[in-house]
């Protein structure tokens, strides 16, 4: 068996280089075909009717007029939609119509008549006292004696914070093109994060064998955790195709529906008490939190976050169910909220202690699982943002424009998912690498190519990476930052397994044995001896007419032992903001992110992910909030005008420091997507506190919240 371990850092020729993404040219030329871009022969377009009420019962439903419209090919009601059915949130799926054009499909939707009995709803959760029976206690966790420790504390913090629901707002909406052809063969082009698993889920929804479903997703326009399942509209689109004689049906959510039902990040609110000694040592934590992610309630979040080993703690959580669109995983599920709640409270505690929060975070680094790493990262981030000169006592400063700095911290797992890879060495010297994986824009395709090229001693141009189809060997869904660890490991193993077979074929011609050979610079040579060598092409000719096909696999349970990928990523982010105390407007000046993620395959695309995560944090700290109306039960901003995301002028300077050093590199490959998307919101909120000397208890820190906080009003 080959030695799979990664080549030492200083011996790598391709991994670790700053390389442009392979699919960059086709994307930036506008020629990459996303699922929503596909227009196969005979295509029908679909439109969806959704519930106009947050909680209501269907009295009657009439689709006759819609069916009669010229151009309509089929109408499907969603599961259970019939007289007597109760919808639980506005936007819930009711009917899907296919037609010869999108315009006609929309006309048909408008022609469906439904009579409703409207029922009472609850859609807002910031005030726990107002949600009544919708709140369910979700358990208590006690460590040590929190009441005694808090009672005896020198300094006590008693405060409250909130972070609202935000949406995924994928630019390519959820949806698919699908054709249910004769013989129950299905061609399926979903915008998905789960090329290898989505067919199995669809199969169980529509009752055809999973093996009959051919999934293709070459590119996809953003998922952020919300694009794993086939979704009810995927199944109904398939049935529309079947009922329309097998013609392909395209259905993608419109923007309003995308922002209403295609995924949200749960809210989180908490009342937090912290006790500490005069020197800043934290002795106790008590929190009462609540959250909602729609009808299914809201998850607890891991607080106290990162500083988890506080000796005395009591943690209570209530799950609130609301009549609103359901939650889906959102980049680092529950961690950004936990980081915001914890780091806000720690920063406010520092103020009570008249202590620099950086000193408080450092002082208590022993409460984290990786004291040395966080201490180093806090120091590095402080250096990059010039904390020494920028930090001042909260609110200290003159004039109407105030500046401040703040800290947020992060932790994540990021171990590799199950992944299989097939490497094919062809007798003509060409190489193909196949995985049922997907590139969400992370650079996955490029990283796979880099690992294969490094392992085979070939240039990137010699490798053809084939992903995006479920006919390739199964690779896990891209969630939880598990992809890079999984695919890099399976690709490494498959490449070396294939190479070993090639060595066996060429060893006799080089007068040696397979175990004495290596692949370097497009040559197969006796280890360390370029004079006893043959070119890759010559070597390939020795394999005979059949290609060499070898598999490689990442088995998560074995990964830690093998060391190609592990888990545990730490990060620290700091922000500097400028707040106009007259208008309440917050502007980003600078943000720094210090991030470790083990061995970094491609620093260029890795940095891009961290830049992106910082910008997402700016969005969530300053702009993003799903606004929902208790009177009508509807989302008021399901668009991109009033559901605000940062634009180019809103982000300030961003500095990313990938913590690339041997001590981290030796840990193997670790996922990056989530950990960098956690600490930024807290950092920005804390920077605002430092600027103003007044806590704005809820993000996004909008102008009205700033002015209310300055007016010393509690505002949620």
């Amino acid at each position, binding site marked *: 068996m080959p030695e799979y371990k990664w080549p030492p850092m200083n011996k790598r020729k391709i991994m670790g280089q700053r390389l442009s993404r392979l699919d960059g040219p086709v994307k*930036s030329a506008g020629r990459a075909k996303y699922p929503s871009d596909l227009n196969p022969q005979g295509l029908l377009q679909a439109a969806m009717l959704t519930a106009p009420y947050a909680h209501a019962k269907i009295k009657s439903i009439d689709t006759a007029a819609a069916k009669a419209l010229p151009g309509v090919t089929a109408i499907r009601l969603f599961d259970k939609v019939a007289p007597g059915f109760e919808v639980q949130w506005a936007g819930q799926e009711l009917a899907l119509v296919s037609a010869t054009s999108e*315009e006609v499909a929309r006309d048909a939707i408008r022609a469906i008549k439904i009579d409703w009995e409207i029922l009472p709803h609850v859609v807002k959760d910031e005030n726990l006292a107002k949600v009544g029976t919708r709140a369910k206690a979700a358990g208590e966790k006690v460590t040590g004696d929190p009441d005694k420790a808090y009672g005896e504390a020198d300094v006590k913090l008693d405060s409250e914070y909130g972070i609202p629901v935000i949406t995924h707002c994928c630019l*390519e909406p959820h949806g698919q093109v699908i054709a249910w052809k004769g013989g129950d063969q299905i061609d399926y082009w979903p915008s998905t994060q789960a090329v290898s698993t989505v067919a199995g889920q669809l199969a169980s929804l529509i009752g055809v064998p999973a093996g009959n479903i051919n999934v293709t997703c070459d590119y996809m326009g953003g998922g952020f955790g919300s694009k794993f399942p086939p979704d009810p509209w995927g199944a109904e689109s398939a049935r529309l195709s079947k009922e329309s004689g097998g013609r392909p049906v395209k259905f993608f959510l419109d923007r309003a529906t995308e922002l209403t039902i295609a995924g949200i990040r749960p809210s989180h609110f908490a009342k937090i008490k912290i006790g500490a000694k005069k020197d800043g040592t934290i002795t106790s934590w008590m929190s009462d939190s609540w959250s909602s992610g729609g009808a299914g309630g809201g998850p607890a979040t891991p607080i106290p976050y990162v500083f988890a080993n506080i000796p005395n703690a009591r943690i209570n959580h209530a799950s609130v169910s609301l009549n609103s669109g359901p939650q889906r995983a959102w980049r680092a599920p529950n961690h950004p909220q936990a980081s915001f709640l914890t780091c806000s409270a720690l920063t406010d505690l520092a103020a009570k202690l008249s202590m620099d929060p950086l000193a408080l975070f450092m002082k208590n680094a022993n409460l984290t699982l990786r004291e040395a790493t966080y201490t180093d990262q806090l120091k590095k981030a402080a250096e990059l943002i010039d904390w020494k000169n920028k930090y001042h006592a909260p609110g200290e400063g003159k004039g109407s424009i105030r500046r401040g700095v703040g800290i947020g911290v992060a932790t994540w797992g990021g171990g590799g998912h199950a992944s299989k890879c097939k490497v094919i060495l062809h007798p003509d010297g060409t190489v193909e690498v196949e995985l049922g994986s997907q590139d969400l824009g992370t650079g996955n395709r490029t990283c796979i190519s880099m690992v294969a090229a490094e392992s085979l001693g070939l240039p990137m141009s010699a490798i053809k990476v084939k992903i995006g189809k479920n006919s390739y060997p199964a690779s896990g869904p891209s969630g939880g930052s598990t992809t890079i660890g999984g695919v890099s490991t399976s690709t490494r193993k498959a490449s070396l397994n294939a190479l070993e077979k090639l060595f066996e074929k060429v060893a006799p011609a080089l007068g040696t044995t397979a175990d004495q050979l290596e692949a370097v610079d497009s040559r197969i040579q006796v280890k360390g001896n370029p004079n006893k060598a043959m070119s890759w092409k010559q070597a390939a000719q020795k394999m005979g007419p059949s290609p060499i096909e070898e598999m490689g696999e990442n088995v998560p349970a074995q990964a830690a032992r093998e060391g190609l990928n592990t888990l545990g990523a730490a990060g620290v982010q700091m922000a500097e903001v400028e707040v106009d105390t007259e208008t309440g407007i917050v502007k980003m000046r600078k943000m720094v992110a210090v991030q470790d993620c083990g061995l970094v395959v491609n620093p260029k695309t890795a940095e891009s992910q961290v830049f992106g995560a910082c910008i997402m944090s700016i969005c969530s700290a300053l702009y993003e909030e799903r606004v929902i109306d208790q009177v009508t039960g509807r989302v008021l901003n399901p*668009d*991109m*005008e009033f559901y605000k995301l940062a*634009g*180019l002028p809103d982000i300030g300077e961003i500095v990313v420091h990938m913590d690339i050093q041997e001590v981290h590199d030796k840990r193997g490959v670790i996922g990056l997507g989530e950990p960098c998307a956690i600490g930024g919101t807290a950092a920005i909120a804390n920077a605002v506190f430092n600027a103003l000397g007044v806590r704005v208890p809820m993000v996004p820190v909008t102008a009205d919240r700033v002015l209310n906080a300055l007016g010393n009003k509690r505002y949620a």
Partner: protein
Amino acid sequence: MSSNNDSEKDKQAQSGFSRRSWLGGVGTGAVGVGVLAPEADAQAAPKVMSGEVEISLDINGKKRSVKVEPRTTLLDALRNRMDMTGAKRVCDRGTCGACTVSVNGKIVYGCTMLAVDAVGKNIQTIEGLAPEGQLHPVSAAFVNNDAQQCGYCTPGFVMAAKGFLDKHPNPTYEQVEKGLAGNICRCGTYVGVRKAVLEAAKNYKGGSNA
């Protein structure tokens, strides 16, 4: 087409630009005009015109016939009826810029213009920037600076950047930020976009390839 129509389109083209200033706390007037006017047109249109009509559009220097309904936007005509899918449908309300195309040399959101209003005008889409397999200097700068992740906003950004550079061949950093403020990216590629546009300014003489 009358010059009045052209000035109306100018307002629409500026609405995304204005939005960012408005987020920063300035006025809102132009936004309302730009976004609402086409919707009002679409609602009124069936009284005088209905069903599909065949029109001829001048796209990337070629005349192309296409059947559209009066309510069909230029964007939907391109994507659904002509298989030109570089321009993306994202917000569909003139906010995000993913559908950016050039009409008579001006940057326009394809979702805010009706296809029938584009008759007789020179339309350029991302597909017309460079032959297949080649890269326009602006696209190349996006690749070099990794100014894209999922890439769904990228064609719109490239078109907006090209239109911006046509008017500002030697932009400052601040001009780039303001000039590209009418496009939104969810993955957060703005750091790369800023660098890409500045790099493209060096390699692309604005207007020469318009």
